[in-house]
């Protein structure tokens, strides 16, 4: 039986035009979103390969005593590539550029973003930056770490820094343009009935993210250019021999890169809010505080960067102020978690694949957030700084929360993107496997780090006593990798074999669910009705014969309903 609110057999955005150029030169935000999605997935596999290289090296592939300089360089290159690819090419564009592009205009009930051509330009810029970046990483043996700290990056390593920095610079512009586009779109293209506080929380999160992208990214752009200028023209900015100050770079770098952490996590939080409302079939608890906490996080994110530098030699007073300010970010983050949990209270909770990712994130972000307290606290951070405790902490936030949020979002909007349902059983097994594998990988790193295991070491001496942690971690990474490939497999399988998806498989009330799956070229055949509360679940009811949800009071011209034929 095919669902009649499915549009795979009708003209939709996927089959309206054909050929390479119809995708490559498209200005359709949905197609651009999908292109970002697959580009990001490709980069994720690349970054993941280097993660496995790191794990295999550390779990005894290479003996401490006999490791050669080439092998150490290969390891240093691997952690640099892993970090740089995962941050600049995977997590930063993941939700905002891939899911955001696909979802934002539809959530607003519009045809496209405010500047569709700028949107296309953003993607092409991203592609150029990505190609430049990846080529450099492969050809040039970049080994500075993703942080590019001088004077190592300016005076002591090869010229691949120059092209890598240029690549990151171009990627930054792509990010700025995307943010600009979303801000204008959200300001100017909301339907008249949708006031700020009637906006879906995903839009609030994307909005807050876009603000950070626009304000912070130029700073990393400038800092990276200064590295370039210093490296090529020997102008003393960061290098002490030339009269510069290496700690100055750390200030500039973290002034962007700490807010960037929230560029990564805020969109994931936005996805979480959608998941918890839809799959509890209940309005989100504390809508306003979730919405405003996104803005609070965006603002606070700019005044905490100095907590990366407690042992760098910055003044004690600065460290103390930054420590106090850092705790301020914890409050809005905690508020969000409590609100998501409260949303479940007296709801009707469906254990779908996206919701399993949502529930995983509550726990993983719980651990990631709470371990942040040890690092915000001055006394304990001095010991934990630059150890695996920090590595584990930020993986819990960036992978366990941001990346799992991306996966949850993919599984949530996949039926809308491709008009197909993903196999329920196998995609849940994949999620649980990733969850278990993730914890097996990073839990041991907390303990190793607390015992003093330093970061970015190509090998640990046999007497250091860190081998057990590393072996457990590598085992976990294998499980995690298997889970992630299985998840990808279920997605690809669904494209051919998946059941056809109805317009609204989950019962979401936000506007993207009020158009057929996959949507027509211009998103909506009729203007979707905006009735106020984006989480008023009573507007849709379950229809078993449709295997999806339909409006309780459909309009006669609603394409999601009008074509319903008795089965």
């Amino acid at each position, binding site marked *: 039986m095919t669902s009649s609110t499915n549009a795979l057999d009708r003209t939709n955005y996927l089959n309206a035009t054909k050929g390479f150029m119809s995708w490559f030169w498209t200005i359709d935000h949905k197609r651009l979103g999908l292109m970002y999605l697959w580009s990001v997935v490709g980069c994720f596999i690349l970054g993941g390969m280097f993660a496995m290289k790191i794990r295999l090296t550390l779990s005894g592939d290479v003996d401490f005593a006999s490791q050669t300089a080439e092998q150490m360089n290969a390891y240093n290159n691997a952690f640099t590539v892993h970090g740089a690819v995962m941050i600049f090419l995977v997590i930063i564009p993941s939700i905002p550029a891939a899911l955001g592009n696909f979802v934002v205009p539809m959530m607003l009930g519009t045809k496209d973003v405010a500047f569709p051509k700028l949107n296309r330009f953003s993607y092409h810029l991203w592609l150029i930056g990505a190609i430049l970046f990846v080529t450099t990483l492969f050809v040039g043996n970049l080994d500075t770490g993703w942080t590019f700290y001088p004077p190592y990056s300016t005076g002591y390593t090869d010229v691949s820094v120059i092209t890598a920095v240029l690549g990151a610079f171009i990627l930054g512009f792509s990010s700025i343009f995307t943010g600009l586009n979303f801000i204008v779109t959200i300001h100017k293209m909301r339907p008249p009935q949708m006031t700020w506080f009637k906006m879906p929380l995903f839009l609030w999160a994307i909005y807050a993210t876009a603000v950070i992208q626009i304000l912070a990214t130029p700073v990393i752009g400038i800092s990276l250019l200064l590295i370039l200028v210093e490296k090529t023209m020997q102008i003393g900015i960061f290098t002490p021999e030339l009269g510069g100050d290496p700690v100055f770079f750390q200030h500039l770098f973290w002034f962007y890169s700490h807010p960037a952490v929230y560029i990564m996590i805020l969109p994931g939080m936005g996805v979480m809010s959608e998941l918890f409302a839809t799959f509890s079939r209940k309005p989100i608890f504390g*809508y306003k505080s979730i919405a405003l906490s996104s803005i609070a996080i965006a603002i606070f994110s700019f005044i905490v960067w100095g907590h990366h530098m407690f042992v760098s*030699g910055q003044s004690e007073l600065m460290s103390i102020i930054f420590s106090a300010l850092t705790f301020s970010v914890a409050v809005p983050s905690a508020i969000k978690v409590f609100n998501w949990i409260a949303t479940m209270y007296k709801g009707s909770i469906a254990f779908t694949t996206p919701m399993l990712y949502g529930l995983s994130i509550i726990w993983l972000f719980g651990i990631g957030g709470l371990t942040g307290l040890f690092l915000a606290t001055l006394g304990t951070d001095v010991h934990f700084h630059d150890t695996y405790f920090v590595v584990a902490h930020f993986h819990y936030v960036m992978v366990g929360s941001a990346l799992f949020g991306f996966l949850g979002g993919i599984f949530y909007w996949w039926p809308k993107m491709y008009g197909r349902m993903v196999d329920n059983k196998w995609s849940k097994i994949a999620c649980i496997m990733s969850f278990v594998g993730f914890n097996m990988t990073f839990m041991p790193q907390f303990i190793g780090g607390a015992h003093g295991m330093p970061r970015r070491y190509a090998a640990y001496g046999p007497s250091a006593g860190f081998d057990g942690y590393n072996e457990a971690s590598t085992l976990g990474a294998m499980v995690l990798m298997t889970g992630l490939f299985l998840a990808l497999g279920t997605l690809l399988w669904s494209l051919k074999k998946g059941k056809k998806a109805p317009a609204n498989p989950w019962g979401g009330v936000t506007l993207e669910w009020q158009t057929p799956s996959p949507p027509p070229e211009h998103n909506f055949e009729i203007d979707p009705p905006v009735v106020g509360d984006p989480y008023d679940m009573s507007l849709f009811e379950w229809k078993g014969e449709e295997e999806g949800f339909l409006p309780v009071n459909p309009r006669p011209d609603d394409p999601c309903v009008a074509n319903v034929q008795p089965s």
Partner: protein
Amino acid sequence: MIPIALLPFLLQHTQGDFWFPSQASRNASSVDELFYFIFYVSLFAFITIVLATIIFAVRYRRSRVGMNPEDSPHHSTKIEIVWSVIPSMFMVVMFWYGFKDYVAVRTIPANAYEIQVKAKKWDWRFVYPEGVESYGGNVDMNDGGEGLVVPMGRPVSVRLESSDVLHSFYVPDFRVKMDAVPGRYNSAWFEATEPGVYPLYCAEYCGTRHSRMLSQVVVKSEEDFQAWLKSQAVDLASLPPAEAGKQLFQKNGCTACHSLTGTPGVGPALDGKYGTTETLADGSTVTIDDNYIRESLLDPNAKIVANFAPSMPSFAAQLSADEISYLIAFIKSLNE
């Protein structure tokens, strides 16, 4: 299953506990106490979160409550204030004790015994006020050094300097860490409380052999420390030149890049090289003689043997004319 996976680690460290290495400095115990305070508060918060999600997920599962849940409040100012203010109060406590610990760690006592710690790629050198120098010593490195030997029960400050890139002085058993930044001096201090040998790591990434920038701290009783200081005060001029050169070779950390066993590292191996002819990157050749060694110490990038990177710093400021002669004598002696 996670606790089972962690079991081996419990047995792994004979010293210290599940979370930490041994407490071997006066500040270590207060850092650990603060850690356990945050840990138990976090554990409580985490268990609450986990229980709430499990209980709600089971109690309100769709197969049990049906598709349309009964109405429940979407907002409660009271409860939102409670769950914002209570965590904030705990965080104020965390900040306060963290601040106090930090001030203690960063305030160097006036009577501290100051040792200069010189970091460079990829070794540590320790220069004592008495003129004695020490280096290396990590048990896994087998570099013949003794490491940072310090007296017990007396505050010791380390003045950190770097002659190339960023490094970081890290002794986990002391809970002490501080970056060595080129172009400025940073300081840290500790008071060792237990005699023993503790690993010293470089915690800031510094290039190829970052993972080999290892040393150790040796804590000795005051008496033993004084005896050690005396034994170290060697007059190089009283030794045979090659022997004096050997000591300089080790003290200056030359072994980090130049092996004496034939396998090239970051730099060429030096055994059996004296008198041989090497090809440079531009195809010209050079004979390894006294003048070439001297030039390579003072201006290392002038003539680099093919296939090696220009990564050696100049030793012009560190070595006297006599010391250069000793080193030449030592390298010559490697041919025998």
